[in-house]
């Protein structure tokens, strides 16, 4: 009967989920071992590797830089994206289609190529400061997420409420702030959260645009991995996973998890 087929999908499904989750659990376990190399099973139990994270300047600096850049880039993309999305959903000209493609263009470009192009054009050719170029790169990364979610939210929003307020005498600007914004706040927040985490996690762009004083956390971990083979990376990975968990809980409390699944 069909139970055979169902059984097969169930088996593959369970195996796949285990396959996805097991390696992450592995990392958490290896972060506590006393051996100076990454090994499993672990011998002994220690928090030493966690303490070691803080002794690494590149990690602490990198974390701060990553957070700052992610915040600024997400904020910038929200500030630019909001008016842009509003304009795009109101006007239906050929130009707005083109503009929409422009805003979503970074998705079409491989991130490595984006990183390289920005590096060679902004940093080398135009002599821009590294931090600004990095910020711009992350801004480009965040834009598509913000724009997509904002357009989605605006399209679901019933604009007749807004038009009603105009008829009743509210100016367009104040109508925007009082009517539109509160109703799409979910989209704004989820756009911001999604931008933040994708900027924080980004590697290909950051790896091209890092340098002497500008250090992102994922890049620092990468560099550390090249020369060291100890469980400190497990420890900081576990910390990052904890951050992801907190992030997901925040998103769940405010918006429900479905908002993250496009």
């Amino acid at each position, binding site marked *: 009967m069909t139970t055979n087929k169902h059984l097969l999908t169930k088996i593959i499904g369970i195996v796949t989920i285990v396959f996805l989750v097991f390696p992450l659990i592995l990392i958490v376990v290896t972060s506590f071992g006393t051996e100076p190399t990454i090994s499993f099973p672990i011998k002994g139990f220690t928090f030493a590797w966690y303490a070691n994270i803080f002794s690494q300047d590149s990690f602490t600096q990198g974390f701060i830089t990553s957070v700052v850049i992610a915040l600024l880039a997400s904020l910038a993309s929200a500030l630019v994206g909001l008016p842009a999305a509003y304009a795009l959903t109101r006007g239906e000209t050929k130009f707005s289609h083109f503009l929409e493609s422009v805003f979503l263009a970074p998705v079409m470009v491989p991130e*490595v190529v984006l990183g390289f192009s920005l590096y060679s054009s902004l940093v080398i050719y135009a002599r821009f400061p590294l931090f600004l170029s990095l910020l711009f790169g992350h801004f480009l990364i965040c834009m598509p997420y913000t724009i997509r979610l904002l357009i989605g939210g605006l399209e679901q929003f019933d604009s007749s409420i807004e038009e009603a307020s105009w008829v009743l005498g509210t100016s367009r600007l104040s109508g925007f702030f009082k009517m539109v914004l509160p109703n799409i706040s979910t989209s704004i927040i989820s756009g911001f959260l999604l931008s933040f985490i994708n900027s924080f996690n980004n590697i290909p762009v950051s790896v091209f645009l890092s340098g002497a004083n500008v250090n992102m956390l994922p890049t620092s971990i990468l560099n550390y991995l090249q020369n060291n083979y100890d469980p400190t990376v497990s420890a900081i990975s576990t910390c990052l996973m904890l951050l992801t968990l907190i992030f997901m809980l925040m998103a769940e409390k405010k918006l429900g998890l479905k908002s993250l699944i496009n």
Partner: protein
Amino acid sequence: MMVLPTFSSSEDSANSYFGFLSNQQNQLVILRTVSIALVSTFIIVLLGIPTSIWLSKLSGFKKTFLLTLVVFPILTNSVVRNYAWITILGNSGILNNLLKFLHIINSPLSFLYTDGSIIAGIVYLFLPIMIITLIGESEKLDPELDNAALMLGTRPAKIFWKVTIPQLTTGIITGVTLVFVGALTAYTTPQILGGNQRLVMSTLLYQQAMTLGNWQAASVIATIMIVIALFVTFLLRKFQKKVDKRKTL
């Protein structure tokens, strides 16, 4: 649409393209990149489709919990996700320890820094994306169609191929586009799990640009990558439109 990325300094002339492409090492890199992407995509399709079908049939807490487990890796840093494979495939990692424990080997085998380890990493990275892409369509699967086919005498296996899968083709093609292009252009995975011995296009690009300062070669690689990515996306989208036309009953 390509307004922003045409910042890439095009110091390259037609000559440098010929020079680059006729180099055997470079051809090898391109070949490796494409084959890794193909194999990874194939595995992901094999594992992803049944999983999303199974998940779509669940309900309630179980479903939400499992879906959360699938989404969690997507939001986790890719350094972490690739590093996990170092703990598995490394010299004192779990795989080697298991083989030693079973007395199959005496000294550790090097699983890392091979094409296989890159494939493992890429599958691990993009599988959740495939599942999430498919889950929406899987939920729309009509069990009545399955029952109808069953009553008409079709064997279950054939039902899967002729009834279930065709309903999912749009989602499958979307997923394949995302995964294949992602696998083609991924950087972190081949860097961590392939190292400098096994270069793919993205790591070659990095090496040429940052380690060797060879801007021309880097620009060439970058342009080739964009072209391939766009071309594949375009092809798959056309294929999707054709399939969609056939689907409208």
